[in-house]
């Protein structure tokens, strides 16, 4: 294993990775921006290096500063967490060239899977089910329109360099296609510096289901089951659970096997996630691959007993997977709620500030991953995720009751600070969610209901 690991991230995931380091007997080096000086991982890690000012561009996205910090502290590996540089092939490459083990897939794999059209082609060849759509970018509006007319509307136009729900447009009316096509290209150029777009059939009310996989450097690949991430607001996941509810076992198995095939085809190494869309008839279609540990990885850990971050390190160290597919047993159900410092009553505006009171839930089958602590000042500079509440239950119903109990225990108070706890309780109590009959529309429905209840303010 490694002697010293630099954690190129912040917040709860940096702490999560530092805990894995402790458990594996490795030293942990934190890096922090000026506004994160008081952060939990800084006081937790064995060493901490100040890499830049608040803006991520100059700190957590500053490759030179981070690699320099790793070299200065004598780290032999770098864990990128999620977001920031976690899926940046350049960062992975610079680490490798600097003699640092990057805990993630090889740079070329990240690059290949990061190009959505290239990834779609690769996965189509591997036999994964695809939505009707173009495998290549469509450089001309005419060609694109012809293609859209062929596969039928509604269609969605996506940026080849996109992902995570950014830079997409849905077209229902063929007459508006060309305009949307041009808008999407312009947006893609602005967002990703790459105008290429492709077109595929758009599924309404689909479920977002993903498969967690682990792949070692010897070509062994296993999947750890599915996660349903359908509860989203503006493509931001709010609640995740495993196993994906309301789907027949054979469908879940097929999805798992498809993900394993895809990982083998891509020469994948490390922990990764294959995202699928599932329609009302339980047909599933490949969407994209996430080359990192996911925010929602704890639910999979809860039902499998496998520590995904520890496995990332073992894989990066060249160890073969300790488990075969038949060793992976799923017990019960697990749910994660993302607690953000946001005000659901005001379009989820972020509400950073001082946490005068902070008491996360506890007790049986409850896990909390958070960088919060009493007296912590949540900075405004970064994403509003404050804590992940994860519960396990022998059944989905038991887990939902437990989540409601746990969320009710969460005490967070500070001047101007709001959290999404109450909103999340409304979600897990919602009959449509409890019956697993929900789609991506559920969040807007609940918000509408609540707007109805609330006196206008």
């Amino acid at each position, binding site marked *: 294993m490694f002697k010293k690991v630099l954690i190129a991230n912040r917040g709860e995931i940096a702490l999560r990775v530092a805990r894995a380091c402790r458990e594996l007997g490795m030293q942990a080096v934190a890096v922090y921006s*000026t506004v994160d000086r008081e952060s939990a991982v800084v006081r937790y890690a064995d060493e901490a*290096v*100040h*890499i*830049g*000012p608040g803006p991520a561009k100059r*700190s957590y996205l*500053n*490759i*030179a*500063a981070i*690699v*320099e*910090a790793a070299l*200065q502290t004598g780290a032999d590996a770098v864990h990128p967490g999620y977001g920031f540089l976690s899926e940046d092939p350049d960062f992975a490459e*610079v680490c490798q060239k*600097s003699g640092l083990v990057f805990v993630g897939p090889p740079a070329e794999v990240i690059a290949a899977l990061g190009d959505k059209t290239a990834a779609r082609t690769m996965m189509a060849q591997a036999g994964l089910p695809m939505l009707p759509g173009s495998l290549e970018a469509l450089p001309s509006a005419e060609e694109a329109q012809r293609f859209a007319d062929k596969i039928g509307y509604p269609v969605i136009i996506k940026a080849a360099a996109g992902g995570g729900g950014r830079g997409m447009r849905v077209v229902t009316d063929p007459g508006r296609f060309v305009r949307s096509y041009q808008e999407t290209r312009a947006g893609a150029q602005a967002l990703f510096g790459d105008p290429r777009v492709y077109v595929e059939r758009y599924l309404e009310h689909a479920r977002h289901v993903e498969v967690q996989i682990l792949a070692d450097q010897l070509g062994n690949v296993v999947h750890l089951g599915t996660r349903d991430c359908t509860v989203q607001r503006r493509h931001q996941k709010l609640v995740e659970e495993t196993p994906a509810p309301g789907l027949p076992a054979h469908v879940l198995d097929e999805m798992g096997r498809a993900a394993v095939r895809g990982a083998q085809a891509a020469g994948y190494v490390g922990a990764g996630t294959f995202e699928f869309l599932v329609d009302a008839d339980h047909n599933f279609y490949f969407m994209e691959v996430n080359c990192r540990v996911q925010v929602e990885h704890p639910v999979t850990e809860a039902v499998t007993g496998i520590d995904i971050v520890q496995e990332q390190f073992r894989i990066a160290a060249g160890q073969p997977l300790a488990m075969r597919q038949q060793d992976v047993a799923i017990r019960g159900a697990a749910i994660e709620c993302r607690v953000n410092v946001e005000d659901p009553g005001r379009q989820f505006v972020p509400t950073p500030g*001082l*946490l*005068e*009171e902070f008491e996360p839930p506890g007790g049986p089958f409850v896990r909390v991953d958070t960088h919060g602590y*009493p*007296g912590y000042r949540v900075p405004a500079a970064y994403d509003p995720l404050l804590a992940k509440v994860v519960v396990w239950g022998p059944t989905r119903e038991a887990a939902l009751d437990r989540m409601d109990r746990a969320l009710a225990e969460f005490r967070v108070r*500070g*001047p101007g600070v709001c959290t999404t706890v109450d909103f999340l309780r409304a979600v897990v109590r919602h009959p449509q969610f409890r019956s697993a009959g929900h789609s991506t529309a559920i969040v807007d429905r609940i918000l509408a209901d609540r707007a109805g209840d609330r006196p206008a303010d």
Partner: protein
Amino acid sequence: MNRGVVDGVVEERADDVVAGLVDGHLGGVLDQVRHTAMHLLSELGQPPHVLRLRAGEVSVELEWEVAPVPAAPPAAATGQSPAAVRPSDDPATPPRDAAPAHYIDAPTVGVFYRAPEPGAPPFVNPGDLVSAGQQVGIVEAMKLMIPVHADRPGRVTAVLKENGESVEYGEHLFAIAPDEG
């Protein structure tokens, strides 16, 4: 956590002062009274709005303009007292007129170099005058040579890092005093 404006008064009748200066005793008493006052403040769980302390001819009187007390955050419950968080309350200290030293900080994590290349003379030495924008050093990060510039004119009073030393972002490299020359 600012708990309001501080108003410190030290009253001494001139002749006492003279007396004090003569036997040098009163000055000591004054110090002791001041220390006792600060000590007392640091021990109080809750800052008073009035503190009067008298020892013989020497007396200290402090009054705080009362601001609504915010609920103390747990962090602030770590034995911090107004005196501890506001050393400037010390009524015996005259307000500084001298401008504080200014620092030139590291623009990034990296290795600090004082000279453009090995063997070359340093960009600046202690005592040198620098102008705003003048290069005073280099921080190397991943083979990138990032120049360090003075952000204001002044006289270099100290070089705070060794040539070739590793620095973090924001670490002080040079101390600069405004030039009165």
